[in-house]
């Protein structure tokens, strides 16, 4: 699936909750729990993406022209959001990642999570994933 199709799928999933924010957050926490464990060797300070309240670890793997990510967070809701990004971008080419406009965040009612970089590692994480892709495209 393309990153657009995957975003639309996520929007569909969340539409079931309508404007029930609490259920959305519980769902995000469940999604976070399903994110595959990071290789502990990769969960180091070198791969930390820091926010004020939540931390994210992000480890990129480049294989046969495609990017894959291992990720984790110290907060459950951020981890859920992180799992959505991994779902959208895992196995995509660096170019597709760079070209993706992330519209799903607003559509699922989570725009506040990208509003302030200070309070959340999630915004920094999006930037970091694109940076990895950018470095590969430049090569």
């Amino acid at each position: 699936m393309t990153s657009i199709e995957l975003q639309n799928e996520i929007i569909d999933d969340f539409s079931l909750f309508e404007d029930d924010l609490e259920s959305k957050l519980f769902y995000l926490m469940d999604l976070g729990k399903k994110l595959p464990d990071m290789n502990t060797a990769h969960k180091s300070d070198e791969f930390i993406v820091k926010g004020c309240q939540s931390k994210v670890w992000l480890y990129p793997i480049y294989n046969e022209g495609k990017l894959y990510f291992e990720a984790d967070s110290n907060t459950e809701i951020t981890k859920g959001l992180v799992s959505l990004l991994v779902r959208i971008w895992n196995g995509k080419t660096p170019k597709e990642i760079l070209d993706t406009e992330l519209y799903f965040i607003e559509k699922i009612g989570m725009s506040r999570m990208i509003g302030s970089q200070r309070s959340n590692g999630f915004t920094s994480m999006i930037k970091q994933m694109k940076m990895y892709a950018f470095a590969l495209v430049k090569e």
Partner: protein
Amino acid sequence: MSSINLQNIRNLFPILHQEVNNFPLIYLDNAATTQKPLQVIEALQSYYKFDNANIHRGAHTLADRSTGMFEATRKAVQQFIHAAEAEECIFTKGVTESINLVAQTWCKKFINKGDEIIITHMEHHSNIVPWQLICEEKEAILKVIPIHTNGTLDMEVFYQLLSDQTKLISCVWASNALGTINPIEEIIRAAHAKNAIVFIDGAQAGSHIEIDVQRLDIDFLALSSHKLYGPTGVGVLYGKRKLLEAMPPYQSGGEMIREVSFEKTTFNDIPFKFEAGTPNIADVIAFKFALDFVNELGKTKIIAHEHALLNQFVSGVKSLNSSFGSDEIELIGTAEEKVAVQSFVIHNKHHFDIGLMLDARGIAVRTGHHCTQPLMNFYNIEGTVRASFAIYNTIEEVDALVEAIKKIIKK
């Protein structure tokens, strides 16, 4: 419960009557800032509609009127804290500026190499860093009173730290993260016996503690308007006249001068010496309406009501813990003497998640380190969730918070 008409009080706060995420707003972040009653909101509007003019200058009627209103707030502050004179009350932009003012003036003149300043382990960063900077500059020594696990000061160590080198002690009256009310009377007495002066950070004292600077013999006291039902951008620095007069000016410019020539400038008397430039006139004027609001209710009633809320929350947490058969929730800050602030952590849950989950039910709390990182390090935690109560909160709101916490733990 105390004899207050809660519905009447709540009707004065329009902001409380709204839904957040489809739930009625429950505002429990009062230690960060309180909501404003209609009197304050209307005073701001009315000032700009009818009275706006620069103060302390100009012969016209509006200037006279706004000057009178501005100075009426100073008088109200004097009465609120029982200062000897209104001139001892200086308007700043907040507690942070009040602290910096003293650090940059009194300390500049009176702190020398080898002198000692004492603070406590539970201080807000704004009551740590200004002293740290001046100590660095003057090669003075900053000492810290440690705390016990329940969040009270280790007074035994305080007496050991106090010495002939101690020049100043700066201590929070009520801790923003723990709620602990510190024994400032004892600290002041001990400090004065050593000829040291005491700065009291009263940010969280405002409407929650009876304030009498003369009875307590406080040298400096900082207050915040916006934590006291008043507008943001206004703070107070109280100082004893003899201390304020001995201090060099803080900022320079208009208002704070007596005469200026290119050869020499002489400075105005207190309080104007420390109020350079056009002050925050509208907000200072509206602040009086907040003080009136508190005075009309009476602090005794306010304190009784807020303590009833705190007790309801603490017993709610305790019964949750016993229903779970384990201490899922840990209360941080369990001193006997407290203002209505309660920090807590939930086992295996990050405070950031808890804050978002509570917000989803319309409950506003503060999460994080509360600008007290040394304190968080003491408890070996990254941060807490903090509920802080005010006069307009209800027992039902506290119960809703406990219920929401229960749901988060069960998840």
